[in-house]
C-alpha cells in the first residue's frame, strides 16, 4: 500500500518538445492522475492498494530536442548587472515569475563566502552569458566529482568548503552563486546521455539521471548550464522538472504504509530515433 507523486514526464520548453509520454506502473495502480504544479512541471499522482515487495515505475517518453535554441546566445549583449536591476523591479509577468528564482531557498542558502566566489565571475558590466560560462567553468575545474561524498542532506557549506560533490551539489552551488548576485537561477532535474568508450557497445541502463542549473535571460528565457560537464546542453540532456532546488523536483516522492526498509534503484535508457 503506497501513495506517490512522480515528476518524470519531460517538460516542453524552449529546448525540447515532449511528443508523448506514458507511465507504466507495476503492481497496477488503483488511482492515477496528473496535474501541473506551480513550476509548470507535470506531476503524476498514483496509489497502489495492494501489498507489494517491488514497485516499478517506468516512464517512456518521446522527446524532440531543439538543438538550435542556444545558437545565437553568444551574440547577446546583456551585461549581468542590467539583468539584476530588471529582476529587482519586475514589471512584466515574465520577470515577476523569474524574480522568484533570485531568492535563496532551503537547499541554497546564501553566505558571504559564496558571494565572494561568485564576484570573481560577475565583474561589473560583464556579459551575462560570459559570466555564467566563467562560473560554470570554475565549478567544473575547481570542484572534484566525488560520488558518495555527499547525500541529499549534506549542507551546501560543506560542498563549498571541501569542493567536492555530485551534479546535484554543483547545481545547488551554482544557484547560490547566481542568487547572491541577484540573478534568477533554477534547478533542473533530467537525464543525460552517456557515450560508450570507442568501439564498445552501449550498455542498457547506462544513461543517467542528472541535474544542472538554468539562468534567466530577459527576452530569451531560461538557458541551461551543466557545471558537471562544463557544457551548454544541446542534444544529450532531457529536462524533467524545474524548481527552486531539488526539493521542488524530487523525481519520485512517496509514502509507504507498513513494511520495512526500502531501496531505490534508477536506470535510464536514451535511444536516438533519427
Amino acid at each position: 500500500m503506497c501513495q506517490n507523486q512522480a515528476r518524470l514526464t519531460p517538460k516542453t520548453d524552449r529546448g525540447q518538445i515532449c511528443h508523448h509520454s506514458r507511465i507504466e506502473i507495476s503492481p497496477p495502480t488503483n488511482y492515477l492522475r496528473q496535474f501541473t504544479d506551480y513550476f509548470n512541471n507535470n506531476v503524476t499522482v498514483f496509489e497502489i492498494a495492494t501489498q507489494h515487495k517491488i514497485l516499478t515505475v517506468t516512464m517512456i517518453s518521446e522527446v524532440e530536442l531543439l538543438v538550435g535554441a542556444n545558437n545565437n546566445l553568444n551574440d547577446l549583449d546583456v551585461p549581468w548587472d542590467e539583468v539584476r536591476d530588471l529582476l529587482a523591479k519586475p514589471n512584466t509577468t515574465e520577470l515577476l515569475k523569474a524574480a522568484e528564482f533570485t531568492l535563496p531557498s532551503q537547499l541554497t542558502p546564501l553566505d558571504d563566502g559564496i558571494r565572494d566566489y561568485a564576484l570573481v565571475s560577475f565583474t561589473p558590466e560583464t556579459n551575462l552569458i560570459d559570466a555564467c560560462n566563467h562560473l560554470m567553468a570554475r565549478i567544473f575545474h575547481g570542484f572534484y566529482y566525488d560520488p558518495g561524498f555527499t547525500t541529499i542532506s549534506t549542507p551546501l557549506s560543506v560542498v563549498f568548503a571541501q569542493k567536492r560533490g555530485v551534479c546535484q551539489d554543483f547545481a545547488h552551488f551554482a544557484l547560490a552563486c547566481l542568487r547572491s548576485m541577484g540573478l534568477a537561477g533554477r534547478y533542473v532535474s533530467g537525464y543525460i546521455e552517456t557515450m560508450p568508450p570507442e568501439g564498445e557497445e552501449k550498455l542498457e541502463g547506462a544513461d543517467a539521471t542528472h541535474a544542472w542549473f538554468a539562468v534567466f535571460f530577459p527576452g530569451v528565457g531560461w538557458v541551461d548550464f551543466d557545471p558537471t560537464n562544463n557544457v551548454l546542453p544541446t542534444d544529450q540532456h532531457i529536462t524533467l522538472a524545474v524548481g527552486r532546488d531539488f526539493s521542488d523536483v524530487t523525481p519520485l516522492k512517496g509514502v509507504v504504509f507498513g513494511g520495512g526498509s526500502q531501496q531505490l534503484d534508477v536506470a535510464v535508457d536514451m535511444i536516438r530515433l533519427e
Partner: protein
Amino acid sequence: MYIKNHSMSALPKWLSLYLKKPHVHDELANHGGDSPEQWDTLFNRLDSLTAEDISSRAIEISQLLQNGSTNIESRSQWHFDPLPFMFSKAEWTLLEDGIKQRTILLNKIQQDIYGEQKLLLDGHIPAQKLYQDSNYLREGFSLPPEELKLFFTALDVYRTPSGEFKVLADHCQCPLGMGLLVESRIIARRIMAEEFAECNVQQIKGFLKKFQEGINEYTQYMDDPRVVILTQGIEDPNYNEHAFLSAYFGYTLVQSADLTVRNGEVCLKSLQGLGKINVIIRWVADRFIDSLEQTEYSLHGIPGLLQAVREGSVKVLNPFGSGVLSSPIIQCNLAKLSEQLLNKPLIIAEPNYYNVAQAETLDWSLLELVSYKNKQVKLDGEVDAEKITLLINEQPNDYYFQEKPIFSTAPFWDDGKLIAKPVVFRCYALTTENGVEVLPSALCFSNEISNDPNVSGWIKDTWINTADKTELDPLNVPNPIKKRMDVTLLEGVISSRTAEHLFWLGRYLERCENTIRILRIFIDRYTELAISPDSTRRNIVGRFSNAICMQHIVYPYIEQVSTLDDFDPLLSKQVAFQLLADEQCAGSIINTLKYLSNAAVQTRELLSHDSRRMINDINVQVQLLKNTNMNISTRAMQSMLDRAIGSIMAFNGSITDCMPNSNGWFLLEIGRRIERSIQITSLSSALLTEELETPEEMSLIEAVLSCQVSLVTHKRRYRMYQSIGTGLELLLLDAEYPRSLLFQLEQINQLCQHLPTKRRPGLIAAHEKAILLSKTTCYLTEKDYLQKSVEGQRQQLIEFSHNIRMNLDTFCDVLLLQYFSHTQTANKLNWTNIEQAQS
C-alpha cells in the same frame, strides 16, 4: 465617560472605587460615549449587589467553565469575569462595518495571490517578500479556485487612547476562541439571566446557525454527509475547544491518524471500516496538512489530502493557503490594498507603520520593530533600542516599524474588587454566498495572555446592546435543509481511535472501582489485625498483602498463586499507601485515575456536561493524591477512597442514560465486562487455589466475596452450607448472577452483536469464538470440580482460570486487530544515494 453623568455616592462602592482610580484610558471610565446607556442598564441591575455577591458569582463561574483547563498536567485556567463587556449599538455598527469590509478585502487578496497576482505585478504587494514567506503555499496554485475562498475568520481589535479601533491581528487559518465564546455565553446567561434579558443583548445563535448552514451548503445533496473536525489531539492546548465545537455542532472529532486517503477520497477509519469524509474543518495549519505533497514534514499531515482537494472530493475549511493573509507583508500593506481593491479607506486599520528609513526621524519609544520574516519577532522601540539598531543596520529591508498599541483597560473582578486590565476584542466573521456575517459578540480578553499554555488569561463575555427588543432574533426553528426522513436516523460515526478509547475507558473505570474495593478490604483487615492479632487474621492479611505487592490481584494481574512468604504485618500500611498513591506502581489507584481521565479526555466530545465535571473532579483528586506521602493516616486514606469511588459512581451514573450504542458506547461496556472477568479469575486463582484450614479458607473466601460485593448474596443463597466451592459457584459459574464471570461473558457475547461483522451469516468471528469457548467451559464445569485439590493445590481451578484468561486475551487481541487498528505507520520514500551522472 461614565463619571460625567453619575454621582459617585449613588454607585455601589465596588464600582465607585474603580472609577476613582487613575486610568490611562479605560473602557468604562473614559470611553463608550458621553452617556453610556449600555453600561447604565447593566449597573442599574447590579447596583443592589455587594462585593460578596459578585465574588460568589465568580466562584460559580469558575466551577462551570470547562474549556479552561486542558488536561491534568497543564493547569491552565481561563478566568471568566462575572461582569460582561458592553458595546453600544452605535459602536458595534462601526466595528461590524469595519469587520465586513476587512473580510471582503482579505478574500479579494487571497483570490489574487493564488490567482492572477496582479497585486504583485503592480507592486502593491512586494513580490520578493511574499515569495519568501513560509505561508505562501505554492501547492495552492494547483487547487481549484473555489477551494481557496475564505470561510470563517477572526480579527483582534483594540481601542486607542483617542477612541479609534485598530486591528492587532487577523486570524484566517484556525480562528481560535469561538468555542470559548459560546461556552462563556452559556454560562453568562445562566449566572446573569436577568441582566441579560434587561440589557437587550444580541443573540449569537443566528450566527452559529449560519456557520452550520455554511457547512451544510457543501453537503446538501448528499445522502449521508460526513463532516469532521480535525484536531492535533490532546497535546494541542486548544483541544478542549475543538471537542466542545465537535459536541456543539455534532461533528465527529478526528486526528490525522484517523484519516487516510484512498482513491482520491478522504476516509475515516471507523469501526465499520473506511467511510468517505465530505467536509474537514481543520485546526491544523495548512503548511503541515499533507505529508506527501508538502516539503515540510509533519506528524499531523494526511498524505494525499491535497490531491483529494484537487479532485474536489473533499472540502477543507478553512481553505488551504489562507495563512498567508496574516503575514506581516500583507498586514502592513492592507491600507494601500483597500484603496486599490475597494477604492475606500479601511474603516478599522492596523496601527501606523513606517519603513526603517522613515522611522529614523521618529520617536522610537512609541514604536515597535516587526520582522517580515518572523511574525514572532516584536521588539520594543524603547527597551530594545540597541538591539533594533543592530538588526536594522544588518538587514534594513527585513524589518518595519509599527506604532506600539496602547490598549484600553476594562474592569475585571479580582479578589473582591475591580481591577483594570488591558483588553482586546476577538471578533468573528463568516463569508457566505450572501456576503459577510459578523458574530454579534466578541471574546473580550486581557492581552496579558502569553502563548505559554500554563499561563492563565482573563476573558469576558461581550454584550451588544440592541436599541429595541424587536430586533432580537426571534427564536426560530431551523428550516430543515433536507426533506428526507432518514436523515434523522443518521448518527455521527466514530473513529476507530475513539472506539478504542471508549473500550479503555470502560476498563479503567472498572479497574479503578475494583482496586479501590480491594484496598478497602485490605485496610479493613489489617486494622482489625492490629486490634486482635491472631494467626488466621494474620494469614489473610499476609496473603492479600502479597497478592497486591506481586500484582496478582491488581493490574497487570500476573497469573500466579499468592503465598505467605516474606510477610511483615508492619509493612501493611506501606503496601496500602503504594497501591493508593505510588506512581511507580502500575496498577495503583493514582495511575488508574490518570489513565481513566486521559481516556475520558480523548472521548470528551461524546461526554455530557455532567460527565465532564466528574472528570474534572477526578483530576483534582489525582493532584491531591500526588501531594500525599507515607505519613497519611489510615482514616485519610479511607476518605480519599470514598471520594474516588463516589466520583466513579457518579460518572457511571451520568453516562448510563445517554449512551447510544451507535456511538460506540457498547465498547465501554465491553471494556468494563472484560476487566471484571479478568478480576474475578485473577482473584480466585491467586487466593483460592491453595487448600487451607477451614477457618482460614472461610475468611479468605469472605474477603474475596467482599471485594466482589457478593458477600451478602452468598450468605443468603448458601444459608445452610458455605465453602470455597459455593463461593466459586457464585463468582464463576452462575449465569444469572450479575457479578459472576459467566454473566460477564454472556453480556460480552450480547454486546458483540453491535460490532460490525464481515463474516457470512452462519459463521462466527474469532473473538466470538473465544467468548463462546469460555462460556461453554463455565456452563460445563461443576463447583466440586473446581474445589477439588490434590496435595493442597486446586490444580483444576488454576487450569480453569488460566484457560479463561487466555481466551479473554485472545478476544482483546482480535478486537485490537480487527476494529481498533489504525493503518500501518507511514514511511517516507527516500530519494537518496542514487547514483547520479557518471560523466
